[in-house]
Structure formats: C-alpha cells, structure tokens
C-alpha cells in the first residue's frame, strides 16, 4: 500500500511519521508531477485551508485530486482536510475539492483560546480516543449516505455536532 500525503502546508509530517510507524509507505504531494505517482489513497492534513486551497489551484492539483476522489480514491482529511473535502462551507461558497456530502463551519469554536482536548469514543474502537481540536471546524449537517463515527457533546461544545477527528 502506498499513501499520498498532501504536503502543501500544515501538519503533514505527523501523518508521514505515523504511517512509517505502521510500516506503510507514503510520499509527499507538493506539485502536479508528484500526483502522477501511483497511490492507493490520499491524506489531507490539518493546516490552513485557505493556504492549501490557493496552492491546490495554482499548482494545478485541485481538479486532478477532485477527479480521483470522484473516481473512487479513498481519502482521509483532518481539520483543514475536512474543510477542503466538504461540499458546503457555511457562509462561503468557494469551490474546493467538495466531494463529501457535509456542511462544515470554519473556526467553529472561535480563536485559539477556544481550542480544546477531549477523550471520546469512536465507532469500531473499544477504548476512548484522544482528540485535539485546534481552531477546529465542526460538521453541521451530513447527507444521508454519510456515516457518523464519533460525536462530542461536552458542555462547552454545541450539542450533537459531528467532530472532524
């Protein structure tokens, strides 16, 4: 298995390290030529979604990645990755990768002082999982075909929101 990691900006090295620990091969995608390499899946890391979106466009990566996902390439997004993958972003109709039938709110918990850490359950894992939210978005609505794996309902959180873990 060989995983492509979008490495335009943000916390991509953490994904590389984790995959290496698991013995999975990965490579960085920094420009269109990298995208041509054979891959079994894509990871879009956390970072600044506005920065990534701009670079995706200008480096001619947006359409090829969108196409590959529509053709069935598995993709995993965290934080900025979630925003890029969501079909709708509240108050903002910019065209992104926009392949996942969800509506997300950016910076939904406010500024850095609103960032937080929780342990919560995740479907398929039998113990609580540590989850960190840094200036995080949350998912407001999901389409009927979206399966929710975890929710965080802490008192400081809006109720019944799907997390972007």
């Amino acid at each position, binding site marked *: 298995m060989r995983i492509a990691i979008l490495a*335009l*900006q*943000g*916390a991509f090295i953490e994904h590389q390290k984790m995959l290496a620990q698991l013995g999975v091969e990965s490579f960085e995608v920094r420009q269109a030529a990298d995208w041509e390499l054979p891959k079994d899946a894509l990871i879009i890391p956390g*970072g600044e979604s*506005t920065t990534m979106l*701009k670079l995706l466009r200008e480096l001619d990566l947006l359409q090829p990645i969108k196409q590959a996902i529509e053709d069935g390439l598995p993709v995993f997004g965290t934080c900025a990755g979630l925003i890029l993958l969501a079909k709708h972003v509240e108050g903002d109709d910019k065209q992104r990768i926009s392949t996942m039938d969800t509506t997300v709110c950016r910076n939904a918990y406010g500024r*850095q002082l609103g960032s937080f850490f929780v342990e919560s359950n995740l479907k398929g894992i039998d113990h609580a999982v540590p989850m960190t939210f840094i*200036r995080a978005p949350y998912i407001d609505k999901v389409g009927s075909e979206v399966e929710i794996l975890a929710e965080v309902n802490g008192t400081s959180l809006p109720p019944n929101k799907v997390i972007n873990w």
Partner: protein
Amino acid sequence: MKENRQELNRNLAQMLKGGVIMDVTTPEQARIAEAAGACAVMALERIPADIRAAGGVSRMSDPKMIKGIQEAVSIPVMAKCRIGHFAEAQILQAIEIDYIDESEVLSPADDVYHIDKNKFEVPFVCGAKNLNEALRRIAEGATMIRTKGEPGTGDVIQAVRHLRMMQSEIRRLTSMSEDELYEAAKAMQAPYELVRYVHENGKLPVVNFAAGGVATPADAALMMQLGAEGVFVGSGIFKSGDPAKRAAAIVKAVTNYNDAKMLAELSEDLGEAMVGINEQEIALLMAERGK
C-alpha cells in the same frame, strides 16, 4: 490543565508549518496576505523597517487596530508585545489574539526578565539566535521559536547565521554521551530536561520558523533548505513594489523550496524588492535584545 494548554498551543504551531506568516498593518493588507496564501498574519502598527526608520520607543499596537485585522481575515492573527511586558501580553490575551510574539522588534520593557509565558492561556512565539536562547524561551513557556534574524533590514545574513547556529548546536548535543549533558546544560544556561530532549530527538520540542530579513522567494527557500519549518516575512512584502505578487510567490517557494525550476519561475518579474540595509550599516541590532 496547564499541560494540556501547552500542548494545544504547540499544536497550533504545528498547523502553521510549511507556511508563511506575514506582517500587516491594516485590514486591507491582511486581506491581501490571506488571499496570497499566508497561514497567519502578524498585526502591527508599523513594520520593522519603519520602526527602524522612525526610531523612538516602539510599543504594542492599538488593540482597536488589531481587532480590525481579526475581523478582516479567518486565518490566525498574531501580535507583538515588548520583551518582559506582561501587561501588554495580558491585554493581547484579553482580545483573544491567537499568538503573541514577545518580540525584540519592539523596545524591550525589561532588560532582565522575559514574560513568564507559562502563566498565560494564549500561545507565545519568541525569537532566538542560538539554541541556548531558544531553550530558555521554551522553559519560560514559548510554544514556538523563530530565528531573530535582523528585522526590517531585508538582509538575510543574520537569519541564516542564527538558524545555522541552532542546527549546529543541536547536532553537537545529539552526538554527546548522556553524562556530558549535565555539563552542557550548565554551559548553555538552559534546563537539563530540555537539553536532554534535544539530545534524544535531534530537534527543538516546538516548531522553529525563520524570521528577520527574508525578502525574496529565494531567501525563503534558503531558510527552508537550512531546516526552518516555515517563514515569517515582515517588511519584505509590503515594502516591495508588488506586495500581492511577491507574497504569493514566497508562499509557493516555501511549499516547493527544493524545486529550483519552480523557484526560477516564481522569482520572475516580481517588481522591486525592498531596498534593504546591509549588516555593516545597521545602527541598531535588535537581535541583541533579550537573551
């Protein structure tokens, strides 16, 4: 809880990696920076080149001006306070700034003590010109480090010197035997635990950006190839002929810092770079503030 906050604050710096943080003085400049792909902006009344030119005491910016910039963009907003001026830092925390830069660019408020940054909920970035300074700032609670360089000069030599110094000192620590670390910590005037962390991991426990004198895409690529995890650009953008174009080019240069062909294209036709001041012509060495 404290531990937790430190970790969250270090994590925000992780999210900024591979990005460019730009100095802006107005909401309009902030929007230009965001549109160009900045991963954060530093809100300040005067960019370092103008602080240098104006002389006098330089202080924290007007909170109203900072708030205007917070409203203008969705990316993180940073602001500077004077070294040791914890009251300015409290004010910046009160307006929910995303990151405070305890910065040698402003006039120091205390020539002995830095701010006890562990007491704050908001994160701090601090400048350092060698590993000793970096580890002392981290001990005080900084969750991000940047080279001091020499702000407002457009001359990259000092940022290069500081980053090379840090990297070389990190390499020296990693090659030591364990029993040598105690003496190293003593000589470096840095906490043993942090010295040990660097020995074991071959890197700082927090993100390390380059700052101070970066003016071109090539400067940014140079700093990234030397091991910086991202770049601050202060005067280099809004003191140049075509800020939007230069800003976008530097953002791309940081992502593809190893691709000389792309760097060549990015460097084309950027208009005039900031004029710059050579190392020998500098009257005031800001990097000597706050050790």
